[in-house]
């Protein structure tokens, strides 16, 4: 069936929606596990999610997914309806999470277009066992439940098939008063009675239309508007779903009295949906009510009058809310990427126009006025595109609950996860790059950081360890901090490991604490002898730092032995467009991110200091800063080599400042960051370039990576 009408977008939507639902499900089950209580809302939500997944999967013909979803739905249906007091929350969470995992694996298969063939039989049995246990434990409640059904003459079989709210309907059927007919809603003048005609109609439904009994009920429901007496068979269409089978085979028979003509009645019945065959005959001049022999004791259920819940007030209140929800649409990320590229190109094009060399020396007041307006609008457009791409970190953060839970269970450690600042937003592309490193850091923290309970108590700490996951804005960066209150890093161990692996580049006396900690990010470093299931598989912290570096971020560690470790990831808010200062050295152009620039100035010869190794430094307001000459760094030919002729740009990253020497400043503008080609990236190990960009006059400018430059200075 899927092939008939579906296209890629159906499958895409299925995958997208189902994975979202699974995430939501995971979240609610973890939340309820934490509080050791499943709230009614959670149960409802889980039930609804499973119901939706079941329906969608059945449509896509993923039967194994649908059937597992169905059994979880059943389980939560029972919990919802019976509200059992004794639910083993932890076991329930295990089951549901196992189910979620199964569904996730199957969903991956769907994504990869592999056959969706996972077998959930064992899991379904576990669920069935659990459900049975629940039913037994709550046998008193169950007894009430079944006994009520028994009065309705329902077999246990039926219960399974139609579990929903059966009481609501059946309760309203007066059992002790068997009646053959029902008075119509409209009370008619008695005089009209004499004109009544009797009809007998037999309705057959098309094959495969399903729920024939309810289709028959639809007919009766509509009939009561126009007739005043009727009898039908099979008579138990409301209570007994097995009657569907009877109707399928023998048809549905109604005998009725009305003042409508034959044609009118025929037209009425012909409107029946999925009608295959109708036999309608008028029963001549019948004085008495006709009796249907085979069903003398037939009980004609009254059409149940259902109380509708008064929700008007609520509805009115929520109107504004619902229209607000509708104003959100989902957009393909690829389109946003393309939009971003286009805006980037436009920023370049704007520079090409307004800084066009042809304009040099012309007096163009009106042009510049218009250009300023243009520049203002492109700037706003750019901000807007950035804003659109921003996504809060909360989803990524909440995924970590699951990791903490699984690991603390397996390792038998008690760990709490605290989340701060989850509403902080970063670019969509960046989010994808931080999920894995984050997971790795959390695993590391639980595995290596947090001590076993006994050890913690001995160290006079609380028995449960705490991991704090924090995000906050810091200028144009976002800081994500993973902090644990575990045993902290052991400097001696790190040093000796680094020595063994030949990773030390400095003498041990000179190395600072910070530098020692940063050693753990070097490739091939791992202090843990025992490899566990979760961490220490050889892919170490170096992978974390590499991942973060690909999005232009950095990682640093801070630790106090005995008190814990904090790992900070500094990530740019966005990648694509930055404010930059263009500078000129000889014929080359360079761009320095404006955010790193503290000041620029023309030096006096007297401020320049040279040490015995010929390293140049400059004294500014009593502080000494190292000087980096770009023309020597890049071997650029330039006429300006005297420091007093050029210009100094003082740049800083979080700890170090230095002064870059260039020929002159060209001006500040928004630049679109383009990645360097691979052959340049691989050319030099200590590359200080962060990328390149296109300037207004068509020339290429190299973007300096300030962190790499300050690192040069430190060496």
């Amino acid at each position, binding site marked *: *069936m899927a092939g*008939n*009408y*579906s*296209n890629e*977008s*159906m499958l895409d*939507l*299925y995958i997208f*929606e*189902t994975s979202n639902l699974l995430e939501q499900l995971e979240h609610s089950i973890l939340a309820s596990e934490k509080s050791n209580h499943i709230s009614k809302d959670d149960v409802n*939500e889980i*039930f*609804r999610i499973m*119901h*939706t997944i*079941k*329906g*969608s999967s*059945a*449509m896509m*013909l993923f039967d194994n997914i649908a059937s597992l979803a169905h059994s979880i739905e059943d389980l939560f249906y029972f919990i919802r309806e019976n509200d059992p007091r004794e639910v083993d929350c932890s076991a329930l969470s295990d089951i549901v999470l196992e189910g979620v995992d199964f569904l996730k694996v199957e969903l991956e298969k769907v994504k990869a277009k592999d056959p969706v063939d996972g077998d959930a039989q064992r899991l379904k049995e576990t669920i069935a066992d659990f459900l049975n246990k629940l039913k037994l434990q709550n046998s008193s409640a169950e007894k009430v439940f079944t006994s009520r059904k028994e009065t309705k003459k329902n077999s246990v079989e039926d219960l399974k*098939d*139609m*579990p*929903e*709210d*059966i009481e*609501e*309907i059946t309760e309203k059927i007066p059992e002790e008063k068997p009646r053959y007919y029902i008075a119509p809603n409209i009370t008619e003048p008695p005089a009209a009675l004499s004109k009544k005609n009797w009809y007998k109609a037999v309705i057959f439904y098309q094959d*495969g*239309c*399903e*729920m024939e*009994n*309810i*289709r028959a*009920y*639809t007919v009766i*429901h509509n009939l009561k508007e126009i007739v005043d007496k009727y009898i039908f068979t099979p008579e138990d269409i*409301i209570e007994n*779903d097995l009657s569907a089978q009877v109707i399928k085979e023998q048809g549905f028979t109604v005998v009725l009295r009305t003042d409508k003509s034959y044609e009118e009645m025929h037209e009425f019945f012909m*409107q029946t*949906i*999925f009608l295959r065959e109708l036999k309608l005959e008028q029963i001549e001049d019948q004085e008495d009510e006709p009796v249907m022999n085979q069903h003398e004791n037939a009980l004609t259920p009254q*059409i*149940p*009058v*259902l109380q*509708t*819940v008064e*929700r*008007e007030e609520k*509805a009115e209140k*929520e*109107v504004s809310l*619902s*229209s607000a*929800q*509708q104003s959100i649409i989902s957009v393909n990320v690829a389109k946003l990427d393309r939009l971003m590229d286009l805006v980037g190109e436009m920023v370049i094009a704007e520079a090409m126009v307004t800084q066009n060399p042809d304009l040099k020396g012309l007096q163009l007041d009106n042009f510049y006025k218009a250009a300023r307006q243009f520049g203002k609008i492109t700037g706003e457009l750019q901000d807007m595109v950035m804003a659109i791409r921003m996504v809060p970190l909360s989803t990524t953060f909440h995924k970590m609950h699951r990791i903490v839970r699984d690991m603390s269970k397996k390792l038998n450690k008690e760990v709490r996860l605290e989340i701060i600042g989850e509403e902080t937003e970063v670019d969509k592309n960046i989010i994808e790059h931080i999920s894995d490193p984050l997971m790795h850091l959390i695993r590391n923290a639980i595995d290596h950081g947090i001590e076993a309970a006994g050890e913690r108590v001995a160290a006079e700490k609380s028995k449960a360890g705490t991991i704090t996951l924090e995000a906050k804005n810091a200028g144009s960066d976002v800081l994500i901090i993973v902090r644990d209150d575990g045993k902290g890093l052991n400097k001696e161990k790190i040093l000796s490991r680094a020595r063994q692996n030949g990773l030390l580049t400095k003498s041990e006396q000179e190395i600072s604490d910070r530098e020692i900690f940063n050693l753990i990010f070097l490739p091939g470093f791992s202090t843990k002898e025992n490899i566990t299931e979760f961490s220490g598989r050889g892919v170490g912290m170096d992978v974390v730092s590499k991942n973060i570096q690909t999005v232009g971020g950095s990682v640093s560690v801070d630790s106090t032995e005995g008190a814990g470790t904090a790992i900070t990831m500094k990530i740019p808010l966005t990648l694509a467009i930055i404010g930059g200062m263009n500078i000129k050295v000889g014929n080359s152009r360079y761009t320095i991110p404006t955010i790193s620039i503290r000041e620029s100035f023309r030096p006096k010869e007297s401020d320049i200091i040279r040490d015995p190794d010929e390293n140049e430094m400059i004294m500014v307001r009593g502080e000494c800063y190292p000087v980096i000459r770009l023309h020597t760094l890049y071997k650029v030919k330039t006429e300006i080599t005297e420091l007093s002729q050029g210009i100094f740009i003082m740049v800083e990253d979080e700890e170090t400042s230095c002064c870059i020497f260039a020929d002159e400043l060209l001006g500040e503008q928004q630049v679109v960051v383009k990645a360097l080609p691979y052959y340049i990236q691989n050319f030099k190990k200590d590359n200080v370039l962060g990328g390149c960009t296109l300037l207004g006059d068509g020339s290429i400018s190299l973007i300096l990576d300030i962190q790499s430059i300050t690192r040069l200075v430190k060496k």
Partner: protein
Amino acid sequence: MIKVLIVDDAAFMRLAIKNMLQNNGFEVVGEAANGLEGLESYKQLQPDVVTMDITMPEMSGLEALPEIMKFDPKAKVVMVSAMGQESMVRQAVALGAKSFIIKPFKEDVVVKTLNQVNALK
């Protein structure tokens, strides 16, 4: 063209129904993700036929149905239900739903049901 409003909390289901209907010359005038939105959309769009999911957050199909019927006693609402929800479908019929579709549904069933419901007087 028959104007249809689709009410379902699952975007996938909405797309499935929409595809089927658009392949068969129906006009899908609106979509809503829960009963409340469905009710609002009905008032605004006045569609010929509504497909209404039962299990939805905020306001279920069973709660939205009587509200729609109150607004427009002639409203033609078709319930979309799963197997195992028989009693809910019965309630829906009692509340005025004209017919129902069982998930997973086939294109011809959906088209036929909606055509016939639309033809009702």
